[in-house]
C-alpha cells in the first residue's frame, strides 16, 4: 500500500473513478497538460485524453455553468476552481441552478457534479488565494459541502462526492495538501458523506473542527492530555449538511463544546453548530459553548496570516475557557 499525500490521494480517487466510469470528466483552468496549479490532476490528461480532461477558457461561471449542463445530460463532471477565492463568479450558477434544479423540476433533473477548490490559508500565497468560504456554500440550500482533513478521507470522500447524485462543493485545505503522508489503499472504496469522523475519543471536552484546523485541534488535544484533560475530536468532514447526531452524542458525554474554524466568526458554521447544540442539548452543557475562529476581517496577506488563523495556543485558550465554568 502506498503512502501518499492528501493531494495524491485526490488524484488517485479521480483516476479510479475515471477508469471505472467513463461519464466522469475533469475540467477547469490548467488541469490538462499542467496537471493543475497544485498538481491535483497530474497525469490525468495523459491517461484519459483531452476529451475527458479539459482545459477550459478562463471563466469560473463558465466552468460551473457548463458542468451543470453536462451533469444534467448524463455526465459526471469534476470541475476544478483554481482557488476558492476565485469561485465567486460561479456563485450564481451554484446557488440559482446547481442547488435548485432537482427541486425546481420536481426531481426530473439533477446535477451530479463536484466542484473542487483549494481553500484556506497558511501557505504564503498571494492575495485572494487563502480564503475560507465554506459557510457561504453551507448557506446555499441543495448543495453539499465537503472538506477532507487527511489523505484517506480525501480519497474516500472525493469518491463519494463524485458518485453522489447531487452537487458537492469539495473544499481542499491547501495547507494539508503535502503536510503528511498516509497509507491509502487504491481500492475505489468511498467513505460516507453526511457523517462526522471521531478522530480521537475523549470524555472531558468535545472539539469540533474541519479542514486544515483539524491539525491544530489534534495538537491542542494532545497538549491537554498532558494536563489530564481528555478531548474528543470530531472532524465534521461533510460541513453541510451536518451530522448532528455524532456531535450531540459527544456533547452529552463531555458536557463541554469548543468549535474551531479558520473562517470568519460571524455567521460561520460555528454559530450554526452552537445554535443547534443549544437547542438540542442545552441541559447537557456544563459551560457556554466556545468558538475559536478567524476574525471578521478579510484574510490578510501572508505576513499576518498566522495572526489571523487560530493557532494551537488560541485553541488551547478556548479549551481552558470552556473548562473554567
Amino acid at each position, binding site marked *: 500500500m502506498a503512502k501518499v499525500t492528501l493531494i495524491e490521494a485526490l488524484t488517485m480517487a479521480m483516476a479510479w473513478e475515471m477508469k471505472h466510469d467513463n461519464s466522469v470528466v475533469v475540467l477547469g483552468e*490548467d488541469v490538462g*497538460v*499542467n496537471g493543475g496549479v497544485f498538481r491535483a490532476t497530474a497525469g490525468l490528461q495523459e491517461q484519459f485524453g483531452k476529451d475527458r480532461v479539459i482545459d477550459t477558457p478562463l471563466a469560473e461561471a463558465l466552468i460551473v455553468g457548463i458542468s451543470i449542463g453536462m451533469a444534467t445530460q448524463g455526465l459526471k463532471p469534476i470541475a476544478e476552481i483554481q482557488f476558492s477565492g476565485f469561485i465567486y463568479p460561479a456563485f450564481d450558477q451554484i446557488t440559482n441552478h446547481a442547488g435548485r434544479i432537482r427541486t425546481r423540476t420536481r426531481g426530473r433533473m439533477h446535477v451530479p457534479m463536484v466542484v473542487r477548490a483549494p481553500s484556506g490559508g497558511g501557505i504564503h500565497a*498571494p492575495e485572494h488565494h487563502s480564503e475560507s468560504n465554506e459557510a457561504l456554500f453551507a448557506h446555499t440550500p441543495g448543495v453539499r459541502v465537503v472538506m477532507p482533513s487527511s489523505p484517506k478521507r480525501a480519497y474516500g470522500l472525493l469518491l463519494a462526492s463524485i458518485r453522489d447524485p447531487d452537487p458537492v462543493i469539495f473544499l481542499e485545505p491547501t495547507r494539508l495538501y503535502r503536510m503528511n503522508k498516509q497509507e491509502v489503499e487504491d481500492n475505489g472504496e468511498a467513505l460516507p458523506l453526511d457523517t462526522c469522523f471521531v478522530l480521537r475519543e475523549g470524555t472531558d471536552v468535545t472539539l469540533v473542527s474541519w479542514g486544515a484546523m483539524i491539525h491544530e485541534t489534534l495538537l491542542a488535544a494532545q497538549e491537554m492530555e498532558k494536563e489530564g484533560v481528555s478531548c474528543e475530536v470530531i472532524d465534521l468532514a461533510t460541513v453541510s449538511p451536518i451530522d448532528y447526531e455524532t456531535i450531540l452524542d459527544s456533547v452529552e458525554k463531555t458536557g463541554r463544546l469548543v468549535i474551531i474554524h479558520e473562517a470568519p*466568526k460571524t455567521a460561520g458554521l460555528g454559530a450554526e453548530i452552537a445554535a443547534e447544540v443549544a437547542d438540542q442539548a442545552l441541559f447537557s452543557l456544563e459551560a457556554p459553548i466556545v468558538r475559536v475562529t478567524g*476574525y471578521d476581517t478579510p484574510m490578510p496577506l501572508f*505576513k*499576518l*496570516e498566522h495572526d489571523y488563523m487560530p493557532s494551537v495556543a488560541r485553541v488551547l485558550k478556548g479549551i481552558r475557557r470552556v473548562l473554567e465554568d
Partner: protein
Amino acid sequence: MKTVAKFEIKYLQYLDPDGKPVQKTLPKFAQDVNELVEMYKKMSFVRVFDAKAIALQRTGQLGTYASCLGHEAIHVGIGLAMIPEDVFCPMYREYGAQFERGVQPHEVLLFWGGDERGNNFSGPKHDFPWAVPIATQNHHATGAAFALKYQGKKAASVSVIGDGGTSQGDFYESLNCAGAWKLPTVFVIANNKWAISVPLEIQTACETLAQKAIAGGFEGIQVDGNDIIAMRDAMEKALDKARNGGGPTLIEALTYRLSDHTTADDARRYRKEEEVQENWAKEPLIRLRKYLESLGAWDDAKEEAWKAECAARVDEEVQKYKAAGKPPVESMFDHMFANMPEDLLKQREQAIEEAKHHG
C-alpha cells in the same frame, strides 16, 4: 444574401525586431532621440527590478511574484501616455506603467511580500490596487470612466487584462457598457500568448483579440506590444480620443511571457523552449537599443553605466522593503470601516493580546 456589416483590424508597428523603422515617419515623441533614450532606460530599469524580485523570491525573501519580463514596452508605453488625472486599473504585473505614475518599487515588493501596505502605494490616490481576480478591473475602469465623464473631467481610465482574461464575462460586459455609454476608457489586452499553461487557441477561435471591440461597438486595434514606440503612440491616440469625447478603444498589444507565469509556476512543463527562444529575438529592449545604437545614441559603455545605476537604485528599494518589517496586527482591522463596529473592536483587542503572547 447581402452583407450588413464588416470589419477590419489594423496593426501598428514602427520598429521591427531588428530595430529598423518600418514606417517613413515616427510619431513626434520618437523623433526626439533623447526621449527615446529615456524610454529605453525606463524599460531597462523595470527589467533590472524584475530580475531582483525573482532573486528575492528564490532566496526566500519574497512571496510568489508575477514577473513582467517581456512586457516592458506595453507597461512603460501605457505609463508614459497617461496623465496623473487618468485612472489606472491594472492586473498584477504592470510595474513599468505604475512606476511612471509614482508607485515605488519597494511597494511592489511589499505587496508580493505579503504586506497590504503595498496596495496603499504612492502615485495618484485614485489609481486602483492590483486586481488578482481576473477581469474584475475592467468593470472598475468602466465605472471610473463614467465618473470622469459625469464630473466633466478631461481624463480617462485605462485597464489592462491578459489574453486569458478576455474569456471572462466581466470583460465582455464592460466592453459592451463602455461602448453603449461612449465612455472615456482604454482597454488594453496584454496578449502574451499564455494564461498560465493555457495557450490562446484554447481561449478563443478569433483571429485577433482586438476584434472583440467590434461587439462593443467601437474601435479595436492590434499593436506590436514589443515596440514601445507603437505602444505609446497607440495609447496616446486612444487616450486623446477618450478625453475628447470619442469613446473607448481596445488595444490588443502582442507580446510574449518570457518568464514563468509566476515564481510558483514551471513553464517547462507545458511549453517548448524553442518557442521561448524565438520570442527572445522579438523582445522589446533589444530592438530599441539597436535603433538607438544606429543613431549613435547608445553604446556598451552607456549600457553598463545605466545597468549599474539601476542596480543601485533597486538595492535601495530592497532595503526599504526589508526595513518595513511586519505590519502591526491591528492593521487587519483598522482599515475595514470608517466607523469600526463594536464587536470588531473586541476582536481587534483580542488579536493584539494574542500577538503579545504568541507573537
